[in-house]
């Protein structure tokens, strides 16, 4: 019997396995450190972090929907300086890769966060061009080829570390923003962020979320996510990180087969604090079952009908 190798190299980031935790679902790691061995994760992607602290949206910020949930947190975060001083040294005590998700309302703000991280001990930056819950910035840049290309280029100029661009699914064609990221020099793309959604309380005749709309995530979005990852992987030559509703190892394998080189676990962390570790084990179980010894044998190996 041969040994299973789950190592993967994404955009120059070598990970012991392809499983990351998604931005906004894992804080800066501390809340889950009592529940799982953080050192088992392929990588942690931090909460979206801005140049200055952001206070976030009014509550209610979350609600459950069939097979999923909506959120409109509004990227509440303590700002990049606080992260570098208060959280990064602690995160660095674990044997895992640290990728910082950065957000901004203007291109200048994105550049400012990336510049603050120039000398920080991190493994990469994920550029968030896809949060649907803040009024300016983010998704406003993320829906077109030109918008994605422009922000990515400007951040690329100040970022010598691996740069991942996180894309929104709220577009007609995912190929356009994906190519925008690639042409601007991104090392990888990640998708999907949440789907723009609305839930209404018929008794009060008001939206459930104070923000009126929010981002849908969880198992219910998985088929949309798999389709978009598959389309994006065909459109670009840089690696794709797939996410959206992954709860089990077999869910993760779907994304790998569709062309993702790594996967990320989001909402499932709220369902089970140990979700990411269970998914790592689940991928290995799948590989044993079918005799795969490396991830290359799986990535993009979907056989179309």
């Amino acid at each position, binding site marked *: 019997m041969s040994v299973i190798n789950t190592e993967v190299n994404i955009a120059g980031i070598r990970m012991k396995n392809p499983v990351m935790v998604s931005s906004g679902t894992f804080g800066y790691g501390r809340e889950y450190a*009592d*529940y799982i061995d953080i050192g088992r994760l392929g990588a942690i992607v931090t909460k979206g972090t801005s140049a200055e602290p952001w206070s*976030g949206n009014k509550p209610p910020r979350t609600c459950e929907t069939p097979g999923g*949930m909506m959120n409109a947190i509004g990227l509440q975060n303590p700002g990049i300086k606080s992260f570098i001083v208060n959280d990064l040294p602690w995160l660095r005590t674990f044997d895992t890769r640290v990728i910082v998700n950065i957000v901004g309302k203007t291109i200048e703000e994105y550049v400012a966060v990336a510049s603050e991280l120039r000398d920080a001990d991190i493994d990469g930056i994920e550029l968030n061009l896809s949060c649907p819950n803040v009024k300016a910035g983010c998704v406003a840049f993320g829906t077109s080829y030109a918008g994605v290309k422009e922000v990515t280029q400007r951040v690329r100029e100040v970022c010598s570390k691996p740069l991942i661009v996180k894309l929104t699914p709220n577009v007609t064609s995912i190929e356009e923003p994906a190519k925008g990221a690639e042409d601007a020099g991104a090392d990888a793309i990640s998708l999907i962020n949440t789907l723009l959604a609305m839930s209404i309380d018929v008794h009060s005749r008001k939206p459930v979320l104070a923000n009126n709309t929010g981002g849908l995530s*969880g198992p219910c979005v998985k088929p949309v996510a798999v389709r978009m990852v598959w389309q994006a992987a065909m459109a670009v030559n840089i690696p794709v990180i797939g996410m959206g509703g992954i709860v089990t190892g077999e869910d993760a394998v779907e994304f790998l087969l569709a062309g993702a080189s790594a996967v990320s676990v989001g909402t499932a962390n*709220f369902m089970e604090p140990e979700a990411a570790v269970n998914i790592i084990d689940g991928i290995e179980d799948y590989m044993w079952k079918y005799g795969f010894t490396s991830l290359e044998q799986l990535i993009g190996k979907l056989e179309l009908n």
Partner: protein
Amino acid sequence: MSKHYIVEVIGKQMLLPGIFRFEIKSRDISQTALPGQFLEIKCSDCIDTILRRPISISGVDRENGTVEFIFQARGKATRQLAEKGEGSKLDILGPLGKGFTIPDRSAKAAIVGGGIGIFPLLFLGSELNKPNLDVFLGFRTLENALLIDEFRERAQNLIVSTDDGSMGHHGVITDILEKKAMESGYDMIFACGPQPMLRKVKEAACSLQIPCEISVEERMACGVGACLGCAIKLIDGEQWKYGHVCKDGPVFNTRNVELE
């Protein structure tokens, strides 16, 4: 230490139509839980309702290693939880959050509860000194009143009111609290209930200058402070900032929290 447990339901009781009391076996939780803390309970294995539900702890038996919680079966998830019975296994995280501050035994305390907000206060009542404890409970009508005897066992004085006068005093419980507080001079007030009640308790405590802790509710996703969903305005000097009910609360000193 991980606070994730699979526990057995060893007792189930329907207190009123749609309101259930579950007793579970968990030595760890029974030893560490504080009044005001809560459990994040997976109500169903079905992928329809994906999120856990925060339910406050209403009592512990440290000797026998058991914990109880009371909840109203209101939505899809809690209705599924209510269908479980003795012998069922429950997947829970807990105890989570910050609990009430237990004062000295010499302190004169008042507990104020409204409707289904009284459940965490039962646990608090067990931890306070009976001769120095007055309990005020408000319900809509006689039909909604519950746990009266259990609160009576824990309190020196028990005062009940209903909105329609069908049981106890006719009126809102906070009016009676205010009057009693002026006479009795409490050292501490604890409250849990609907938002309008909490606002009134906060005002009363503030005007009488009595320290006051309240337990609040907000929609939660993770329950552990990671998702930042359950935001609440915390007073920070002249300004405010969003804190989170699951981690900074659910119990807050009324001085530190803005009730909208």
